[in-house]
């Protein structure tokens, strides 16, 4: 029943929002009229040497008047002239930004001339106006506040965590499945494959993937399962070896670790995918972790893992690849979840702290959204305008 209602609602919405009809304009007048009420002001919030001229369109400037050519903008340093052309604009524009060889502090006068063929119709002279630079962009106060509040929160919590205060993070489903997946591989006596993506160590996603590798390696070492980590970057290989070794040491199985567990295949995207395809088909690993920065190869990898019947736990923040992981893998860490998992597992206080800061930022945004929508709907105050950045 609820579904039927929802469907009806959805269909109803599909009908909404048809375009309106167009108004027609009155017939054209023959004589050329000048633009009315021109003004010139200093360009606000800029680095100076720039002025803005605005005018009300000439009554002759209409779509039907095809001969109407547009406006010419004249400038002089005194009201008596001489006036020199500094630019032109097409018909139906009412603003010109002049930044041609202006000096900050000097006085300028302007005239806007409507043109139709040879005919000219100049506006009154406006001025004086003086270009100047500003020290603060007044249209961006809201962004400044946002930067300060967010930075403050993040820095505060980094310090907080660094002093060893505990930080709570919720459970993440994909991580709880690690034990089960490793256990299954051990029972079946098959390998576990960990694939950390195709990007180098400069990608935050690779770092998060390596942190997760640390946790997986701890589990494999206690279960006595076989772990293999084929990588596509030499730097990633170095980092992955360090991480796995450390995990095996920490659980008291340093003898089970050997460098060959982590090996380099190739830098080439599809070459890497093809090599992994071969490994999967030959060795039939029971569990595959796809944790890192993936691109188009994600599909090839996940498909092959699926074809050999492996349990797959994926994680990435690459939005275009997430759908494929969700559709092919048993568990997927989505976007931020993936980062949190990395920080959570690495227990790195600075990572944890900044995550907490981010979370509070999100809480503030949520609160603003909830308050904002109520205020906006009641119409007492245009709350949304607080979020307009110039």
């Amino acid at each position, binding site marked *: 029943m609820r579904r039927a209602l929802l469907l009806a609602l959805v269909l109803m919405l599909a009908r909404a929002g048809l375009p309106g009809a167009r108004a027609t304009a009155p017939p054209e007048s023959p004589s050329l009229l000048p633009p009315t009420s021109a003004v010139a002001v200093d360009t606000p919030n800029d680095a100076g040497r720039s002025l803005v001229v605005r005018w009300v369109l000439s009554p002759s400037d209409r779509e039907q008047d095809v001969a109407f050519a547009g406006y010419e903008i004249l400038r002089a340093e005194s009201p008596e002239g001489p006036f020199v052309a500094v630019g032109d604009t097409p018909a139906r524009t009412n603003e010109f930004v002049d930044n041609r060889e202006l000096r900050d502090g000097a006085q300028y006068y302007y005239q806007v001339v409507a043109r139709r063929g040879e005919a000219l119709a100049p506006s009154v002279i406006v001025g004086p106006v003086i270009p100047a630079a500003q020290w603060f962009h007044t249209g*961006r106060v809201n962004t400044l506040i946002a930067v300060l509040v967010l930075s403050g929160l993040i820095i505060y919590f980094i310090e907080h965590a660094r002093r060893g205060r505990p930080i709570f993070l919720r459970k993440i489903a994909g991580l709880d499945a690690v034990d089960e997946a490793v256990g299954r591989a051990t029972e079946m006596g098959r390998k576990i494959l960990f694939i950390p993506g195709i990007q180098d160590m400069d990608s935050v996603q690779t770092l998060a993937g390596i942190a997760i590798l640390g946790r997986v390696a701890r589990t494999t070492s206690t279960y006595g399962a076989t772990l293999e980590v084929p990588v596509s970057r030499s730097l990633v290989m170095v980092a992955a070896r360090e991480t796995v070794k450390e995990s095996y040491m920490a659980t008291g199985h340093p003898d089970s670790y050997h460098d060959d567990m982590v090996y380099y295949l190739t830098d080439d995207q599809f070459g890497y995918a093809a090599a992994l395809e071969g490994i999967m088909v030959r060795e039939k690993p029971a569990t595959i972790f796809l944790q890192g920065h993936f691109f188009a190869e994600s599909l090839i990898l996940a498909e092959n893992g699926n074809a050999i019947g492996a349990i797959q736990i994926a994680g990435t923040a690459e939005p275009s690849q997430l759908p494929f992981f969700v559709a092919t893998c048993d568990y997927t860490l989505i976007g931020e979840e993936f980062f949190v998992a990395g920080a959570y597992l690495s227990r790195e206080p600075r990572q944890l702290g900044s995550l907490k800061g981010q979370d509070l930022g999100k809480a503030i945004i949520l609160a603003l959204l909830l308050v904002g929508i109520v205020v906006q709907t009641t119409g007492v105050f245009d709350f949304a305008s607080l979020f307009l950045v110039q």
Partner: protein
Amino acid sequence: MVPLFLTAFVGTIFVIQFFVPHRPFSSMQGLLTDWVQIIVAFAIWLGALNLMRVSAESVSKREKGWPYAVIIIASFLLMAVIGFFFSGGTRFQDPGTPFDWMYQNVYNPLSATMFAMLAFYVASASYRAFRARNREATLLLLAGFLVMLGRVPVGDQITAFLPDGYRLSNLADLIMNIPNKAGQRAIMIGIALGIVSTSLRLILGIERSHLGGEA
């Protein structure tokens, strides 16, 4: 020490210049962006030169598949020589130059076909791997179906019996404009906060993995 200072200095300048239009920030920003463009060009050069180095090593050590490395080097040199010396200098992209010929008839088809291969993989994954294994995946696949059908003419043809405005294309519009918009927005806001915190850590020198650990 120097790299950390550089990151902090440049990062701060770019944050400040957003709020302070006055000189010297406005002109510094212009100069620094020019520098970035030049450095980025060198960085991409580095990638190409590195490829040559790796390939040359592979040839000299007679690694497995080294003849392919010879082809890589040869085609790189061919393209570079043509582009530098035989295509009219700065006018190297003009229609009719050898460089343009290589672009149109070698680079273009190869690159387009590499990506077109993905269509085959999508199809085989559709058959072999995309499973409605849980509620989430089911929802995802259903939404995918509706969008796939609704965004091509066939969608409206098979729902032609429904009144205009209630067909698959309208349903696809709806999905794109309501749940997709909401979901994307939630993801975007999350990403924005993540980027703010990462950038901040970089500027403050807390995050320095890109410099290879301690710098």
